[in-house]
């Protein structure tokens, strides 16, 4: 039997005799399995509820009676964000971003009703998810298992006899690494369970594999860090103290500090603030409700000339509809410009946080995990962009009906009496401009792209630490 294998199996034998190791493992497994099951149930219920709400909203819209098309522009529509299948593993931003958005003409609204606003509040760590259990607590378990691996052999003088037998320091370390990695692999088995459930919700298998690989690399980084402390420090309790301190710094302190730095260095104006600036721009566009607004003079002159007629009443289409359509388009350009600026500011803040991934593998793994699960900022922006596309399409679809199916004369006389009001309507079949909506997370390849920089950071951590460990392991002394 090779000495590496021998060292590894011996380590396992030691763990199996240790009550603390077995107890810690049992607690961890109970925790991760409970969390996974609860999260899976929650996501299933949420998905079901939101799909139902979406269907309900679509049905309500489509069954509206004949009406003036602009009434339907203001009647508006709702979109509901269904959670990504892997949100049951890593809910990411899913819980703290709005689930519903109201779409209407002339406005972009914010997504409303986040889960976190209504939940009982116990602070950030109480949003326990399988991902968080792996990010924060699996390292503690690895420290528990690994802190004594070299230090214990040194304390009991086994190390000196091993070295005297001609087993090199590197081989001892390789054996211990193998044992700890196999343990890390075991810890990750419940992840496959979560992944399998996501697969049944049409999640591609590649993202589950990547997620598994990601967390394995992350736990491997902690394995290497723990072994390094165990190699360098003489006493077990010193190893434990240093590793616990390191965990405190990397897992609890640095991520939040990164957030402070990001929000302090990059300013991201909120929606109300940027809307106020935008309003000044909008003053110039004219009020789309008022076809006499001077802003539309040019449009009117062009149309009159094109059709060679004297007044807007003689145009072959409804001029009020043309104005509504034109102003919605110009308005949307401005709205999108400001929405993009807001998203870019948020991305800029996130990039500052992301840089701290070089200092803390916890941050790197968390970001990559959200990206792969499709619950990160990019995905939330994707929802906002999709919602805006739906909004613009249905509003312009209705405006199109306004232009071509409602005469100008009927339109301007709509408030005269009841008959005039009835004439100024279009058929309800026009409401079918609305397509059925299902929110889909961004494509897998895009998600992998979003995760890539964080994955590189994690790999850099692992490779550098591993190199140092084996370089130092060569000089292992009893």
């Amino acid at each position, binding site marked *: 039997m090779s000495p590496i294998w021998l060292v590894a199996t011996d380590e396992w034998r030691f763990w199996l005799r240790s009550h603390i190791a077995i107890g810690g493992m049992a607690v961890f497994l109970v925790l991760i399995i409970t969390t996974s099951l609860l999260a899976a149930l929650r996501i299933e219920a949420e998905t079901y509820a939101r799909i139902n709400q979406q269907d309900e909203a679509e049905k309500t819209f489509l069954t509206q009676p004949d009406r003036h098309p602009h009434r339907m522009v203001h009647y508006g529509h709702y979109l509901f964000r269904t959670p990504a299948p892997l949100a049951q593993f890593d809910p990411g*931003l899913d819980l703290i971003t709005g689930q519903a958005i109201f779409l209407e003409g002339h406005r972009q609204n914010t997504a409303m009703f986040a889960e976190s606003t209504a939940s009982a509040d*116990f602070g950030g760590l109480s*949003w326990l998810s399988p991902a968080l259990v792996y990010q924060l607590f699996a390292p503690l378990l690895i420290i528990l298992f690994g802190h004594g691996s070299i230090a214990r052999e040194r304390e009991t003088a086994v190390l000196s006899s091993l070295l005297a037998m001609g087993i090199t320091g590197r081989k001892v370390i390789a054996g211990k690494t193998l044992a700890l990695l196999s343990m890390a692999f075991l810890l990750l088995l419940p992840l496959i369970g979560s992944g399998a459930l996501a697969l049944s919700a049409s999640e591609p298998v590649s993202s589950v594999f990547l997620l598994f690989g990601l967390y394995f690399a992350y736990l491997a980084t902690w394995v290497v860090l723990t072994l390094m402390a165990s190699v360098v420090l003489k006493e077990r309790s010193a190893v434990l103290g240093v590793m616990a301190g390191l965990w405190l710094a990397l897992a609890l*302190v640095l991520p939040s500090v990164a957030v402070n730095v990001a929000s302090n260095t990059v300013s991201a104006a909120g929606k*109300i603030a940027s809307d106020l600036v935008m309003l000044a721009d909008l003053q110039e566009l004219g009020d789309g409700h008022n076809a006499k607004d001077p802003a539309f003079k040019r449009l009117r002159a062009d149309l009159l000339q094109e059709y060679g007629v004297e007044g807007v009443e003689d145009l072959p289409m409804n001029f009020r509809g043309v104005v509504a359509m034109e102003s919605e388009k110009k308005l949307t350009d401005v709205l999108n410009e400001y929405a993009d600026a807001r998203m870019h500011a948020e991305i800029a803040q996130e990039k500052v946080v992301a840089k701290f991934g070089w200092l803390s593998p916890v941050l790197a793994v968390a970001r990559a995990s959200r990206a792969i699960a499709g619950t990160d*900022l990019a995905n939330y922006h994707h929802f906002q962009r999709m919602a805006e596309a739906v909004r613009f399409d249905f509003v312009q679809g209705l405006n199109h009906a306004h232009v071509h199916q409602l005469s100008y004369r009927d339109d301007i006389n709509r408030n005269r009496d009841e008959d005039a009001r009835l004439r100024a309507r279009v058929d309800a079949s026009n409401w079918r401009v609305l397509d059925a909506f299902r929110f889909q997370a961004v494509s897998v390849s895009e998600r992998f792209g979003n995760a890539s920089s964080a994955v590189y950071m994690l790999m850099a951590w692992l490779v550098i630490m591993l190199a140092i460990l084996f370089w130092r392991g060569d000089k292992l002394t009893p």
Partner: protein
Amino acid sequence: MSIPGALRREVRFSSRDPVLWLWLALVLGLSAMSVAFGLAEVERQNETIQKLIDGDRHDRLAQYDKQESWGSAAYYSFHLTYDPPSDFAYAAMGQRDAQPWMHRIRMLALEGQIHERDVANPSIALIGRFDFAFLAAFVIPLVLILLLYDLRARERIAGRHDWLEATVGQPTSFWLLRASLRAGAVFVTLVVPVIIGGMVAGASPAKWFVATLGVFAYVALWTMACFFVSSWRRPGSVIMLALIAIWVAIAVIVPAGARLAIDRLVPIPTGADILLLQRETVNDAWDLPREVTMAAFFERHPEWSEYQPVEGSFEWQWYYAFQQVGDQRTEQLSTAYRDGRLRRDHMAAWVSILALPSLLERFLQSLADTDLRAFFEYEEGVRGYHAALRDFYYPKFFRNEAFDRTLLEDLPSFKPGNPGMG
């Protein structure tokens, strides 16, 4: 051996421990940093509010200039409402990253507006700020554990344990003195920056004094826990693991379980239901006979019941009446939504007695007015203000008063922290 003598000896002994100095320096640095970032954030939020107050007024005045009727003036003018950070918010930003603290509202149905969320970057809210409350509630217990777990075990390894106990007379008070001296040093380095921050921010001394007391009690409790567990005759590593397990249990597992249980025990209506009902009511009004809408409106406002709507023509009285009826219809759901959230919060307050870190965090947030209660008060303030706008405009509509631009100066203005303002 007299107490001062023992104290002096312990101070001398501890001051020679470089690890203790390292931790104290770290705690001081982290505390100072959290306070500095907190102060900067409070200043940033105040600046934002000030800028928005100006921009809001400017925009509204520009709108007024274009209006020719009370109805359109009310339709086109937005009003900023806001909840400024309190003088202690620098220590606990709490819900300010997750809940909206600004709304720009107008005279339309309020339920369609009040659930808008103009909140900070969600990736910031997800990780959470490193504020003083987080440091004190979640990080400091771990620092105390790392400092105190091996007080006895270390002496045992150094072979001095039994000798020490034999010489000091009362071993328990000796170890207690050593533990409390170290914990006391941590406590002082922790709270000094927050007190200095309070002076910089001009916070009322009562607030940071009470906060300091709370933190003191918290540090004392953890010190006792470390002290008792470390008296266990076991290797230092076992003691540390036991203490960390306690931390994980009460900082993470109890809160996470309690959150799930409370959310399940207290169901609340979904937001979607409120929104959909509100929209249906408001939109159906266009097709309903006007008497129906007006009858519902007059239930709340009998004083205007002489008004006779004219079918077929557009009238602002009727328009704003159906906006209000939209709010009336959703009132029950909306109240249930609010009450449910309050009940959840109320239960969370009780359960957090079992989850000490959450208890301290919630305590500091309530001092800083950044807890859920403060946000409900703000929401009440917005509702009160919206009602005041209605009180201002309704007489103008229903008495058919001629539009007078100058009278708009009498519009009530929003005053923060004053629910049901006038």
